[in-house]
C-alpha cells in the first residue's frame, strides 16, 4: 500500500500571537513550531496501515525549508520517505498549498492520502478536500475511525452532535481527527534512524495566490470584567446582571 501523508509545521498551540512588522503575518520571534497535532494522527494511521498491509509511507510538506522539521518528526515516528515542495516564501494561501501538493501526489498514484483534518494555524478545514478534488479522489474528512477492506472504505466522521458513517473506495483522501488513534512517541532507535533519511526537495508547480492578506490584527481587547469574591452570596447579583445588563438569559 502506497500511502502519502501531508504534514505541516505550525506554531505551538500555546503560542501568544504578536503581529509582525508587516502587519500581515505574525512576529515569529520566540515562537516554537511543532508538527500540526492533527497530522500526528495521520502519520500514526499511515504507519498502522503499513504495518498491517505492507507498503510505504511518504511524508510530504509544502513550505519553506523550515517545514522539513515536520517531515523529520514523521521520520522519527517511522515514515520511510520525505518530500518537501519548497516554497521560497511563507506567503501562500490554502489553494497554493493544495495545488502544489496535488500536483506532486497525482504523479505518485498513491492508494491512500492522509492529512490531519485541518492545521491549527489557519484552520481552513480545506486542504484534504481541495487536494482530493484536484486529483479526483474521494475525500472523507474529520475521521475518527477508519476501516479499509480490500478497496472498500467505511469511515466514521465526527459531526455536530454525532457521527456519520461514510462509505467510499480506494484510492482516497482521508482527513484525521483526534480519537482515531494514539500517536506513538518516537523511540531512540527510530530517532537515530531518522537522521540518515534524506528529504527530497521538489520545485513548486504553482506560485500564484488566490487571495492577499491586507491586514492582520489582534481581536479587540476586552475591558476588565466584574469580579465577585463572596462565593455563593454573590450569585443572585450575578444572575441579575446576566439578565439585565448582559441580557443573555
Amino acid at each position, binding site marked *: 500500500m502506497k500511502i502519502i501523508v501531508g504534514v505541516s509545521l505550525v506554531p505551538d498551540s*500555546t503560542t501568544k500571537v504578536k503581529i509582525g512588522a508587516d502587519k*500581515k503575518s505574525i512576529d515569529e520571534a520566540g515562537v516554537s513550531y511543532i508538527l500540526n497535532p492533527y497530522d500526528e494522527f495521520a502519520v500514526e494511521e499511515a504507519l498502522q496501515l503499513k504495518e498491517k498491509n505492507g507498503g510505504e509511507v511518504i511524508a510530504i510538506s509544502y513550505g519553506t525549508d523550515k517545514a522539513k522539521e515536520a517531515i523529520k518528526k514523521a521520520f522519527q515516528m517511522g515514515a520511510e520517505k520525505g518530500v518537501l515542495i519548497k516554497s521560497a516564501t511563507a506567503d501562500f494561501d*490554502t489553494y497554493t498549498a493544495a495545488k502544489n501538493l496535488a500536483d506532486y501526489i497525482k504523479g505518485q498514484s498513491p492508494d491512500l492520502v492522509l492529512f490531519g483534518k485541518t492545521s*491549527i494555524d489557519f484552520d481552513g478545514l480545506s486542504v484534504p478536500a481541495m487536494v482530493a478534488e484536484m486529483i479526483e479522489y474521494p475525500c472523507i474528512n474529520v475521521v475518527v475511525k477508519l476501516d479499509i477492506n480490500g478497496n472498500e472504505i467505511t469511515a466514521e466522521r465526527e459531526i455536530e452532535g454525532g457521527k456519520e*458513517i461514510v462509505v467510499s473506495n480506494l484510492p482516497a483522501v482521508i482527513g484525521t481527527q483526534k480519537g482515531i488513534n494514539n500517536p506513538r512517541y518516537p523511540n531512540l532507535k527510530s530517532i537515530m534512524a531518522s537522521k540518515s533519511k534524506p528529504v527530497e526537495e521538489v520545485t513548486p508547480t504553482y506560485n500564484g495566490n488566490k487571495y492577499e492578506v491586507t*491586514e492582520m*490584527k489582534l481581536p479587540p481587547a476586552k475591558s476588565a470584567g466584574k469580579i*465577585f469574591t463572596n462565593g455563593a452570596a454573590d450569585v443572585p447579583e450575578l444572575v441579575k446582571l446576566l439578565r439585565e445588563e448582559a441580557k*443573555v438569559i
Partner: protein
Amino acid sequence: MSNRILAFVESKDGKFKNSAFEVVSEAKKISGELGCEFEVLTIGSGIDAEAENLGSYGASKVLVVDLNDLNSKSKFPGTQYSHSAFAKVVAETASQKGANIILISGTGLGKEIAPRVAIKTDSAFCQDCVALHIDGGNIIATKPVYAGKSMIDMKFNGDKILITLRPNVFKPVKSGDAKAAIEKVDVGSLNLTDKDFSSAVKEVVVSSEKLDVAEADIIVSGGRGLRGPENFHLVETLAGVLGAATGASRAVVDAGWRGHGEQVGQTGKTVSPSLYIAVGISGAIQHLAGMSSSKTIVAINKDKDAPIFQIADYGMVGDAFEIVPALTDEFKKVLGS
C-alpha cells in the same frame, strides 16, 4: 463583469438551521451594497413551504433540489446524502446561474463541501469568515486565524469568490412577510456522474440528545477544578436548567473524563455562544483561543489569578462546589423552571 450571488443554505429534516437565516440576510445585505442579484439554493425533501419563508429574510427566489431525486443517482445503495454530490450541485448551479460569488453557511456540512466547490468553480476561498465588507467594490472577508488569537482581512484575486460564514456571528434580519418564489431544480440538468458520488453517508448516528457545543447559544464548560469525572453532574445540571450544551477543557478530555466532542479550544471546537460559563477552568491559552469570542463570559474559579479572569465579563472567585449549585438554584428560580 457584473456580480451575481448564490447563497447555499443547509436544511435538516425539512427545517432550516438558524445559520440559513444568517446567510440569507448577509447575502441580501452584500447584494445591496454591490448592486447585484442574489438567489438562494437548498437541498432537501418537503422543504418548499419552509423555503418560501426565506422571503422574510430578503430572498426573492429559492432554488430547491430534491434530496431523494439527488440520492437516486448515487452508486452507493442506501445513501442518505453525499458531500461530493452536494458540492457538484452547488458548483453546477452557480455555473448555470452565472453566479460568481457563493456564500455558504459554515455549518459542519457547509465547511465540508465548500473546499470542493471552490476547486470545481475555480474560486478564491475563505473558510469561516466572521465579517464581510465592501471596499472600493471589492469584497473583504475577515477570518480568525491561530484559533482566534488574531484575525486576517482577505482581499480576493479574480472575480470568483466563495466564502463560508461562521454560524452565530452574522445577524439574521427579518425584512417583512414576503414569500420567496420556489424554483425546482431538475436533478437531470446537473450533469451528475458516478464520480460525484465518490463517497456517501450511509448512516447518521446521533450520539445523545444533548446539544452540541458548536451549535449552542449557551455553553457550560468544566475543567480540572471539578476534581474528577464524577463531579461533572454539577455542570450538566446547570446546563440542563439553562438549555445549554456542556463543554470541557482539553485537560479533562485528555484525562478521559469527557469525550473529545465536548472539547473547546484550539485542538477542539471554536465556539461563539452568547453566554459561556467556565467552571473550574484556569484558562490555558489554547482554551481561551477557542472561546474568547463568546459574547458574555462567566468564570468560576478559586484561583483569583487564573488567566480565565482576564477575559471574563463576570468572575466568581470561589469554590465551584458551592457556587455552581447556588447558581443552578438561582437560575431555576428566575427562569421558573
